[in-house]
């Protein structure tokens, strides 16, 4: 018999204008309780202004074993970094 509640991944937005960031995971019987649990577990020190919860099983992820073909080809392509442009001084810091 399976007694465990499903696992939920929690995303918190720290302040307006920022994006939600993954902060951790927790267990809850449904989405509504996952939001409440996230409020109690992850925002008790005033960390957030918005909460997203996603049931972990709905997240598709890359397999660690595939990291060679997926990520290594970009290692040698430094020309994809926009570091070859001269930025006029008037632009200031970017």
């Amino acid at each position, binding site marked *: 018999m399976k007694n465990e509640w499903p696992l939920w991944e929690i995303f918190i937005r720290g302040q307006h204008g920022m994006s939600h960031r993954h902060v951790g995971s*927790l*267990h809850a019987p449904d989405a509504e309780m996952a939001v409440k649990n996230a409020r109690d577990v992850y925002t008790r020190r005033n960390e957030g202004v918005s909460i997203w919860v996603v049931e972990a099983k709905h997240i598709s992820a890359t397999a660690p074993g595939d990291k060679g073909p997926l990520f290594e080809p970009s290692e040698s392509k430094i020309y994809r970094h926009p570091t070859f442009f001269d930025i006029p001084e008037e632009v200031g810091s970017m």
Partner: protein
Amino acid sequence: MSVDKQHLLQFLLRQGDNTLVLGHRVSEWCGHSPILEEDIALANTALDLIGQTQMWLGYAAEVQGEGKSADDLAFLRDAWDFRNVLLTELPNGDFGRTLLRQFLFDAFQSVLMGRLMQSSDETVAAIAAKASKEVAYHVERSADTVVGLGDGTEESHRRMQEALEYLWPYVGEMFASDETDAAMAAAGIAPDPASLREEYDALISKVLTDATLDIPAATYAHKGGRTGYMHTEHLGHLLTSMQWLQRAYPGCEW
């Protein structure tokens, strides 16, 4: 505004003792809850209640005018001086009973705080305004859990119905009125508790119906807590644990 200081003090002790005693009860779950997330949530609730206690008893001590602090009132009074309703001092029982007790109290607080925010006493109104946000979350959370467990498995439903039968006779005391309540109502400081019953019943009926629980027909209500006339035997045991440090090491600070 002229109001009898003794009545105002009694009123404030009733508010502060309710949140103090229930806050301590809820804190007893810390480290023992059935699941980690609930453990943290219950600890948060307990801390909210203790925070509200600091405000209520802090104001009570000020009104009393004997140079005492909120801590003095919390840790150096004996059982007969406490003015909390009996519901708040009842033992936790299982997790379901704890959450049902919480819901029955949260629902009362949510109705009461809404009125107290309009209090003619600015300090009372300010405390209520701060507490009302916490109370709004508490009642939402406890109501959800009551529905989840009541309308859950056969066992959880049975336990919740048993908890309701056990707790129901302690609901009525929250709506009792005496001369202190009359004085508060006359001064516009607080509503007569009896006048809150209709709104309360509407709120809890909806949740308990969603939870597939039957509200007992019996109307008998235990009383004696908010007047201090007679607490249950459970309060003294609670105090020996809660007050132990200040009793054993008087004036201890850290």
